[in-house]
């Protein structure tokens, strides 16, 4: 396969061409799209609150904001400065003109747009939680074992809950371990939602009862729709002082299905009336239970008795040390209740068996140090090889091969959207280490001045290399399934790196070495 030298110019062999081609392909895979993102001008919308004015104006997740009211936005800081400037004085409706990379959106609003923003990604590589920060929960039904189909149902409901709740940067996966246990793995990138714990683990069983009779429960069967993000039918009603702090009441309207409304009429028709100072009410209240705890009791006015009414107002309250705390608490409780009313309850109680929340700041520090370490390792290995072989060409070709293996592995990770966590990167480094070892075997075989042809010697080198390759694969395979697959990254990147070595870089390296030897 080696082509002859043509004058002074060396012709590259097919294997070297394949390596160059794969490297170019990898570059294209890793580069951001569009590549102008590399210049870093603009901020990207990571998530956007549905039904917000920005959303209604047409802004969507993934768009890149370039300008706000003619002010250029290059960084996250520019954005927060621009927004705080605009909303510092204006309390009334303000006109916002947001220019994205390929469009312009104009809308009126009285508050800062409900967006989560991020810097432009410089590559398509995704880092894992331990390096980018975020939260991870491993959840399983408490006390019962479930099939993978049931876990998929659970994932569907949980996914809907997160959507309703407005958390979009999330990944939900079913995982299965060596012993056949099924789990749901929840991963949220970036900042951790404060109530992640409750969102994923609360069964969310909502029941509205009159006396002992259930009138309706959360979920689509009983509840046709729930009013949210519309001040006319949902919001904080009032705040007032209570002992030891403040409290705020919220209310929102829900629309019952025909059937649930009939049930309500049936039950109320049998009730008597109480006359109080506030007015005439039915003798029993509508009690709202969340996970078997009483959330609120609502008085039912007399005119609702026996009537098929589909519209019901739900109320509740939040408390806190200050007015602001109470307000936030009430808002949160309202959102939680709305979420549960929309999505319905989970079919069983859940248990969080693992919960990790990683600080984005610490993660960034780790990532930075790993990159420095990577460079250092390249440098030290180059120096050792140079001392040993005293040939700059050989040293460079080993370093180039190491780099290629890491680079192609990263490209595959980007392609399959693998989140690179610390074990994954350790795997790449270990794989590169095997790569260097293999190349040393090839070099030593090829420079030994024995009476066997170069081709034969390299063939022998490949016997050793293949042996080492299969033992590594054999050793790492079981890690794919053990421990709910949390260490899968380590196995995956090691196997990827050594496989790329065997299939692409090592054959090319052997040819490069032949060229150097010639």
């Amino acid at each position, binding site marked *: 396969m080696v082509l002859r030298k043509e004058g002074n110019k060396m012709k590259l062999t097919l294997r070297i061409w394949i390596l160059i081609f794969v490297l170019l392909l990898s570059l294209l895979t890793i580069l951001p799209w569009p590549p102008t993102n590399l210049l870093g001008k603009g901020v990207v919308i990571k998530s956007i609150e549905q039904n917000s004015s920005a959303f209604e104006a047409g802004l969507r997740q993934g768009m890149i904001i370039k300008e706000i009211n003619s002010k250029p936005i290059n960084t996250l800081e520019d954005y927060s400065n621009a927004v705080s400037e605009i909303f510092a004085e204006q309390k009334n409706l303000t006109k916002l003109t947001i220019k994205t990379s390929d469009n312009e959106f104009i809308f009126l609003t009285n508050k800062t747009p409900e967006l989560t923003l991020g810097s432009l990604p410089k590559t398509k590589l995704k880092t894992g939680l*331990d390096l980018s920060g975020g939260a991870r929960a*491993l959840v399983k039904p408490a006390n019962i074992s479930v099939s993978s189909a049931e876990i998929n149902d659970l994932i569907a409901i949980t996914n809907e809950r997160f959507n309703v709740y407005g958390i979009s940067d999330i990944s939900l996966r079913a995982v299965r*371990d*060596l012993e056949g*246990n099924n789990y749901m793995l929840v991963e949220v990138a970036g*900042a951790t939602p404060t109530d992640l714990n409750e969102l994923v683990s609360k069964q969310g069983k909502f029941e509205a009862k009159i006396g002992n009779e259930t009138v309706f429960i959360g979920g689509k069967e009983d509840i046709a729709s729930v009013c949210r993000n519309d001040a006319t039918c949902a919001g904080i009603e009032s705040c007032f002082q209570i002992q030891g702090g403040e409290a705020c009441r919220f209310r929102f309207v829900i629309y019952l299905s025909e059937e649930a409304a009939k049930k309500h009429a049936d039950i109320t028709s049998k009730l008597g009336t109480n006359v109080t100072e506030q007015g005439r009410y039915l003798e029993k209240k509508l009690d709202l239970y969340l996970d078997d705890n009483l959330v609120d009791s609502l008085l039912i006015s007399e005119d609702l008795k026996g009537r098929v009414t589909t519209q019901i107002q739900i109320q509740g309250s939040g408390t806190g040390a200050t007015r602001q705390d109470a307000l936030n608490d009430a808002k949160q409780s309202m959102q939680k209740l709305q979420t549960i009313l929309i999505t319905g309850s989970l079919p069983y109680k859940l248990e969080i*068996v*693992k*919960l*990790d*929340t990683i*600080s*984005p*700041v*610490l993660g960034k*520090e*780790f990532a930075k*140090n*790993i990159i*420095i*370490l990577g460079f*250092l*390792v390249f440098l*030290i*290995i180059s120096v*050792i*090889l140079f001392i040993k072989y005293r040939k700059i060409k050989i040293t460079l070709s080993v370093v180039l091969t190491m780099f290629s293996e890491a680079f192609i592995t990263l490209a595959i990770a980007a392609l399959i959207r693998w989140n690179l966590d*610390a074990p994954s*990167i*350790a795997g790449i*480094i*270990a794989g*590169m*280490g*095997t790569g*260097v*070892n*293999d190349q*040393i075997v090839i070099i*030593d075989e090829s420079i*030994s001045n*024995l009476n*066997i042809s170069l081709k034969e010697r390299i063939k022998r080198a490949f016997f*050793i290399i293949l*042996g*080492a390759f*299969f*033992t590594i694969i*054999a*050793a*790492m*395979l*079981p*890690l794919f*399934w*053990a*421990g*709910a697959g949390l*260490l899968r990254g*380590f196995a995956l990147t090691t196997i990827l790196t050594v496989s790329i070595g065997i299939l692409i870089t090592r054959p090319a390296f052997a040819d490069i070495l032949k060229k150097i030897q010639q």
Partner: protein
Amino acid sequence: MEIQPIEQKKKSWFDKWYKFFPVVPVLILIISLVYLGFFFKQQGDFIYKDVSLSGGTTITLKGDFDSEKLESSLKQKFSDINFRKLTDITTRKQIALIIESPATAEELKAAIEDTGFKITDENSSIEFTGSTLSKGFYRQLIIALIISFVLMSIVIFVLFKTFVPSFAVILSAFSDIVMPLALLDFLGVRISTAGIAAFLMLVGYSVDTDILLVTRALKKGEGSLNQRIHRAFKTGILMTITTLAAVLPAFFLISGLPDSFRQIFLIIAVGSFADIINTWLTNVGIIKWYCEKKGIK
């Protein structure tokens, strides 16, 4: 060949003593096994498990703060609690404090906040693993380690198709795991899930020098047996040196790396050291003896 006279000299020395080469490593292996036996009797397990394998919480607090006060206060509240500091190698400044305890995340968080330290999403990482889950993890990782070892052994047998050389390679891989394990226990290192993954890696990683040695020794026609072993040694030791060069900077030059990362590298480093003696003393002894007996010169 210019090196001939040196080779000759080496030959006689080597030929005389090679049978004693395995003595030291085999002694170390026996000591390690006995130590692990005692360790098991005492602790009921082969390793010190960290909370990712035994259940509990790890909290990493970022920053250079006075950790003494926090440590003493927490020690009073929790009987089983561990602290580790991450410091910058050049400035000696504290980067973070790692706190480990079998307590739940809520208990530990509350106790830390009681001392006046405010925990936020930014300044801290909290990892909690339930005890049932972590026990399951441990069990599965041990099974994975065994499967990994068996698969590796099968590959070796398929590769060499003869018993003694294959056995030598597998023995070396076994020692490469047992020796670091005993050393880590002796040093009191708490092993995490990532650490056990590193042992799996070791199974696959450490045998390449053994494959090199056996292949070179058994293939006739490339100089004498001693020359072939010597050549394998020169290649193999360079391989191990580059491996160490790749993993050691993580301890001496760069600080502030994730714990999982450091542990993987620590185990590979110790395993590589063990591999030097297991390959170039034990295995060389066995293989040379085997070749002499089979008439492979």
